[in-house]
């Protein structure tokens, strides 16, 4: 079967949530026609720039990836996983990410008694995990958490706060 190169590229980009390298695209197409493939990608990129499209094709360091255009991101946010996390859950998640391992009681002091409920839900969702430290339990971020926030390891979770404008806190810290 002769496959349409443009169609294959579209299918490949559609099926990957992460950027796909140019080399990988060539490999999947079983071709070495670098210019032809680059041309198709550029054309697709141009085509998707038009106003009638809600997604665009971006070339990143790691490769090519389809993304929702910035204008529509807030609109589609509710459709993506974990978007159902309430503010309370997100707060607990942030505290765990920032100070892991952290005990439940430390979180209770700032969030209040609903912490227990939040922790249970986050555990069920696989985003945090309990480790035993002495008499009490401490909470840490999981691999799934890392994957979700685009981190390499759960220990990198603190990096999420580097860019935050927490000036007041930096002075206090």
């Amino acid at each position: 079967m002769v496959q349409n190169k443009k169609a294959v590229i579209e299918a490949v980009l559609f099926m990957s949530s992460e950027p796909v390298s140019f080399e990988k695209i060539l490999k999947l197409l079983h071709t070495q026609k670098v210019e032809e493939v680059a041309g198709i990608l550029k054309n697709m990129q141009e085509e998707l720039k038009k106003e009638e499209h809600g997604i665009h094709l971006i070339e990143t360091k790691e490769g090519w990836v389809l993304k929702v255009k910035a204008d529509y991101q807030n609109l589609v946010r509710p459709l993506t996983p974990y978007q159902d996390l309430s503010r309370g859950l997100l707060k607990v998640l942030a505290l765990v990410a920032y100070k892991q391992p952290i005990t439940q009681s430390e979180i209770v002091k700032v969030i209040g008694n609903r912490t227990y409920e939040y922790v249970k839900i986050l555990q069920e969702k696989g985003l945090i995990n309990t480790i035993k430290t002495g008499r009490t339990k401490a909470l840490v971020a999981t691999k799934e958490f890392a994957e979700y926030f685009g981190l390499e390891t759960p220990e990198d979770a603190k990096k999420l706060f580097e860019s935050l404008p927490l000036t007041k806190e930096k002075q206090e810290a």
Partner: protein
Amino acid sequence: MLTDNDMITLVVNEPSWEDVILKIVAEEGMDPWAVDLIKLADAFNVYLQKIGEMDLRVPARFILIAAILLRMKSDIFAAKKLRTVLSDSEKPPDPMLKILAEVPPLQPPLKRIPLGSVTVDELISALKKAFEVKERRTIRKDRLRRAVAQVLPVDQEDITDRIEKLYSQINSYLTELQCSVEFSKLVKTWERRSIVRTLLPLLHLTQEGKVDYRQEQVWGEIIVEGKKNESKA
């Protein structure tokens, strides 16, 4: 409130233990944490007395359900205990945490999860797998059935008939002069199967209060006696 009989019907008729618990909670309006385990165990006891044929799955289900409920309850108690331990701590909170809890929380990135479609090959291998699992399950069941049959041969004859027969057999020995009979006389041929076939209805008769028995020496002869007001029946 669930009666013993309701409980038995539930456990025997529902397809899975999840359904039993769901029904107890949903239809009977009972708090799952308040299901009376003693009651469940009692219902099991009543059931055991009632069964005529042996269906090992049902008694096993009683035990499983009771165990699951017990586990659920103990988890709750354990969590409660942990809460008390944690809230006792009196260290001042980390100021940074306080601030973090007040600023807008982490916003998860927009993440797309592209779902692959099932290919024909995957569909075919799913079918193969389903048949393989079924075959393995059938083999395991057959093996279990044979093993059970070896240890506990299932009787074709109804247990009630067997109880009746033994009772009239015992009565035929009991006369004005003789008010007891040796168990060994009641057993047709002295081998394991026959002994069990006689002992089981005897236990039922004792339970029902129709006869008594005593065994003066361990492994010794069992003496079966008619109840005083029944011996002439």
